[in-house]
């Protein structure tokens, strides 16, 4: 009884949030799954049960196959690119350089800008239009006499999504830099010093002392980038709009709701997105909270 008096008020204070999360996250997820199993395929709501029909339709839909291909290419290029740039920046800043604050601020600033706004300038930079409508990077290549480098960018037939990853790499490299920088600096200086005393070259200090310490950070970075990538929406809308050539699952869901008004199919896409994210996030959450408790 005394113990309840001790923690009771805390539980009471958090309970409105618990209820809100229970209803608006978990409850609505359940409702969305129910919609995906219904026959609500037009503007007028309908709650008749249709089983997995919407999912089956989706997998027979060539646009969906294309979406999956797009998101796969985007994810690979985005993750590899962002990890590479973010890691490199952290590595360069690791030992402390003059003006570190300035560099960090510059690298991180894209995080403060919405993809809707930065997408506009990236659309200009990656504009494939030729001749007097030419802008951006293609104009640079042409002025530099490198005509062969000018290309279709995000409108390229097969690999356009690789170009689409560029703005995303630009936006998130600073974030990954911050993560890795914290990782680098988290290596105790005594460990590095001890290795140097043993005659290890600076390269070997990194190779054998610092890099192994970065594994947990790398895993976090992978998971964070992975879940951002699966959900990517604003960037695609801002740069490519609703075109099929840059369409990804999150955009297709939006099209299903607003243009096709096929709610069951839209809900099915949303459910699949959620499953994709959960596979990544749930083990990560369980692992993080558990290791924190053991610490």
């Amino acid at each position, binding site marked *: 009884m005394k113990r309840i008096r001790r*923690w*009771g*008020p*805390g*539980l009471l204070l*958090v309970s409105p*949030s618990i209820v*809100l*999360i229970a209803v*608006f*996250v978990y409850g*609505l997820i359940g*409702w*969305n799954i129910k*919609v995906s199993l219904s026959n609500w395929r037009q503007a007028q709501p309908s709650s008749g049960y249709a089983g997995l029909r919407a999912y089956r339709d989706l997998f027979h839909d060539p646009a969906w196959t294309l979406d999956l291909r797009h998101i796969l290419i985007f994810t690979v290029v985005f993750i590899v690119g962002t990890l590479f740039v973010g890691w490199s*920046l952290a590595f*360069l800043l690791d030992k402390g*350089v003059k003006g570190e604050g300035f*560099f960090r*601020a*510059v*690298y*991180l*600033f*894209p*995080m*403060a*800008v*919405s*993809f*809707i706004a930065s997408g*506009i300038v*990236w659309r*200009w*930079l990656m504009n494939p239009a030729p001749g*007097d409508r030419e*802008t*951006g990077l293609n104009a640079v290549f042409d002025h530099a006499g490198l005509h062969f480098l000018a290309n279709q960018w995000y409108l390229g037939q097969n690999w356009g999504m690789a170009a689409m990853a560029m703005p995303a790499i630009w936006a998130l490299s600073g974030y990954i830099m*911050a*993560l890795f920088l*914290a990782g680098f600096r988290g290596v105790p200086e005594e*460990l590095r010093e001890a290795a140097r005393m043993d005659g*290890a*070259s600076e*390269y070997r200090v*990194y190779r054998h002392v610092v890099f192994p*310490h970065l594994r947990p950070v790398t895993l*976090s970075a992978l998971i*964070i980038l992975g879940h951002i990538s699966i959900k990517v*929406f*604003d960037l695609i*809308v801002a740069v490519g709009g609703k075109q099929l050539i840059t369409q990804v699952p*999150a955009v297709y869901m939006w099209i299903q709701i607003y243009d096709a008004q096929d709610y069951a199919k*839209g809900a099915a896409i*949303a459910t699949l*997105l*959620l499953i994709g*994210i959960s596979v990544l996030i749930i083990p990560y959450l369980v692992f*993080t*909270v558990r290791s924190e408790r053991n610490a």
Partner: protein
Amino acid sequence: MTSVSQAPPIVASAPLPKPRRRRVPSVGMKYVLLLIFAVIILTPVYVLLVTSFKGVVETDAAHAWSLPHLWSVDAWRQAWTQLSPNMKNSFELVIPATLLSTILGSLNGFVLSKWRFPGADLVFTFFLFGMFIPYQAVMIPLTQLFTRIHFPSGIPSLIFAHVIYGIPITALIFRNYYATIPDELMEAARMDRAGMFRTFWSVVLPISMPAFVVALIWQFTSIWNDFLFAVFIITDPSQWPVTVALNNTTGSLVTPYNLQMSAALLASAPTLVVYILLGRYFMRGLMAGALKG
């Protein structure tokens, strides 16, 4: 890594195989690389600024990258005319949503770290999942629910959504921060038989400033920049926040580049100003988002 740091001292005199000497970049090289990266990252800003001050005639291929010959604020004036009602909407959305979710976050974070109840970690994990979900997975039911319960449409419903879906991240920011407060401080308050609210009010709140700054900046930036919730929830164009209006004005290919760029800069100005003034707190919010401070 332990093999390097634990070399037994006796072996030191024995001839060691000469380590392959591979170079770590020199300081000069580092600066060159850092500067190149900085230039690349700032290139879009150059394009935005330069193009936004050009007249329409200068936005063609021949002048694509050059400075404007005639500096003109026409595009800015036009962007302001088109977007100012939506800027106002964004402020009316962001200010209450940010304040409410931050206050809620401080209460939740306090309880989840310093006034814990059995199962507090479970509740926290249960919250955190809500931070990572693709919001598409709640969007159809959410809009349905708003209609069914006749929730005031437009900005109020968007405020409500941002407050609810901001619960996880704000709880995380405050919980991480409060975890650094020594438990003895809580014990001292308990000795004085202070209740939960008094402890929060007179012990915890006065030292919470840094966490408030981080949470406020974080929520301000992400709610201002949100497009997904707004595009699904707000159906009336006069209620659109600036992101949706921006996408709508610049989405069409007939909009001249100078207007597109000035509109993009205008819509980003508030978050950029906050970033320039308070950037270091922004970074802390980011690190909280990675779960580990």
